[in-house]
């Protein structure tokens, strides 16, 4: 019974933790512009993140070492450094977007300008990291993030023509005034949002924080294979809401208010309240994850003591990195950059950094030194290689497409 509870809790946390500001904005934006014609990208992305999260979960549970620790071991200090810089910058950019998302959610609810909320959000994120136990912060925000299920409820309530949505989903091509370049650009953004690198850094470091052993392997796998796909369904319902409400009206999504509007239309004030709390939880949880991941990547590359399983003073440099990143996030947002725009860029840059993150995982998951007898089978390697190819293509195409489409205009 207790075991069942733990598994359920893990799955619920994985669902709630799957969606962050990048998924919220990108899915709504894509749904409004392309309907469900790009839904397949979410499916491809979810399979990819399941595949690689399972590999990295296995590496952690058996070797006790988180992913970034191993990236340097396998790639060497130079290539490892390039990976570090790329992943760190992308994670920092994501952190900026998440902090902006928290502040925007408060602005929507209160009417007080988001720049006034922002320092408070930064302080709250730091305080939670400084004081709250790892397992607790993961559970609280994961479970609160589950409130985003209102998007699925709203989609049903909006009473869409399901046949039409399905036929959109099965015909993957641009529509209306869109062309293949914008279609590909947003496809890459959506892919980047689903497979964001920080997810594996956080997932594997979290495994060490919670002292996983071989026995936790089943739990980790269940979380990944059940939690992430359900999180993907959440993403699809955000996209679906936008496809039903905004696409026919010719409305493009560019603000967080627009992202939440379909829920208000379907479920009224109560729905709106629930979705605002859900957005807050999802962005706050992701802000914690990205801030910690900024610390994890640098500390693990350098071999410093890191983690919340020790007192802050025993991992001083780790905590200083997090504080510096939070200050940098604050300074960036103070320039009044649009957090939604930052989010859009962050998912595209995430897509660019993906091969660097996932290649070492594929190598290590085949190394008996780290995973013993649990190396990848032939099928997993075939999938792994296929996805790696996909990641390389997306990564190489991202910048040309960004220039060509003027970032998706």
């Amino acid at each position, binding site marked *: 019974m207790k075991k069942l509870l733990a598994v359920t809790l893990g799955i619920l946390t994985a669902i709630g933790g799957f969606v962050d500001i990048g998924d919220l904005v990108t899915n709504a934006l894509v749904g409004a512009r392309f309907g469900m014609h790009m839904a397949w990208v979410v499916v491809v992305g979810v399979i990819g993140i399941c595949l690689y999260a399972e590999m990295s979960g296995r590496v952690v549970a058996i070797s006790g070492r988180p992913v970034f*620790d191993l990236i340097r071991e396998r790639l060497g*200090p130079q290539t490892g450094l390039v990976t570090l810089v790329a992943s760190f910058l992308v994670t920092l950019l994501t952190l900026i977007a998440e902090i902006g998302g928290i502040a925007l959610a408060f602005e929507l609810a209160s009417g007080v300008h988001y720049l006034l909320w922002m320092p408070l959000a930064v302080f709250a994120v730091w305080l939670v990291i400084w004081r709250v136990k790892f397992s607790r912060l993961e559970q609280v925000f994961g479970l609160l993030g589950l409130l985003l299920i209102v998007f699925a409820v709203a989609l049903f309530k909006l009473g869409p023509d399901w046949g039409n949505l399905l036929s959109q989903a099965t015909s993957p091509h641009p529509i209306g005034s869109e062309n293949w370049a914008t279609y590909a650009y947003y496809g890459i953004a959506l892919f980047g949002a689903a497979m964001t690198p920080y997810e594996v850094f956080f997932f594997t470091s979290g495994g060490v924080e919670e002292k996983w052993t071989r026995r936790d392997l089943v739990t980790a796998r269940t979380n990944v294979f059940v939690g992430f796909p359900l999180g993907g369904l959440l993403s699809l319902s955000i996209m679906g809401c936008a496809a039903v409400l905004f696409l026919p009206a010719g409305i493009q999504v560019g603000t967080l208010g627009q992202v939440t509007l379909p829920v208000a239309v379907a479920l009224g004030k109560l729905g709106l309240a629930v979705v605002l709390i859900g957005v807050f939880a999802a962005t706050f949880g992701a802000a914690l994850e990205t801030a910690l991941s900024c610390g994890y990547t640098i500390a693990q590359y350098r071999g410093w*003591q890191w983690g*919340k399983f*020790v007192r*802050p003073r025993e*991992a*001083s440099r780790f905590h200083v990195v997090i504080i510096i990143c939070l200050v940098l996030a604050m300074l960036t947002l103070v320039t009044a950059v649009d957090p939604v725009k930052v989010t859009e860029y962050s998912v595209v840059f995430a897509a660019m950094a993906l091969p660097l993150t996932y290649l070492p995982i594929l190598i290590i998951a085949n190394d008996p*030194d780290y995973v013993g007898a649990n190396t990848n089978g032939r099928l997993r390697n075939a999938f792994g290689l296929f996805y790696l190819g996909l990641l390389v293509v997306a990564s190489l195409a991202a910048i040309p497409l960004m220039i060509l489409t003027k970032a998706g205009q």
Partner: protein
Amino acid sequence: MTMAGRVLHAQLHLLDRQLIDQADGHLAGKVDDVVLDLDADPPVVTALVSARREISARRITDLGTAVTVDAEGLDLDRYDDRVERAVIDKIPGAGHAAE
């Protein structure tokens, strides 16, 4: 180098590995370099280098996915201590475990 009958590849099994302090299990840096005795046949690793400190190979107590060493007196976390004194210790709660 050989240890307990195992032949290890210095580049694959030592370089860039995580160092762990045997005393408290704390993470203590990475193996940045190794010092080789080329006169011996085959050449043996005599010391590891981390954060510009040499750690004699005799101090290695365990070799797995990380390298555990007896770090007594080496002061491997001197940089961390410096940051601790300059910043972290000034913040309330630095010495408390999270709740």
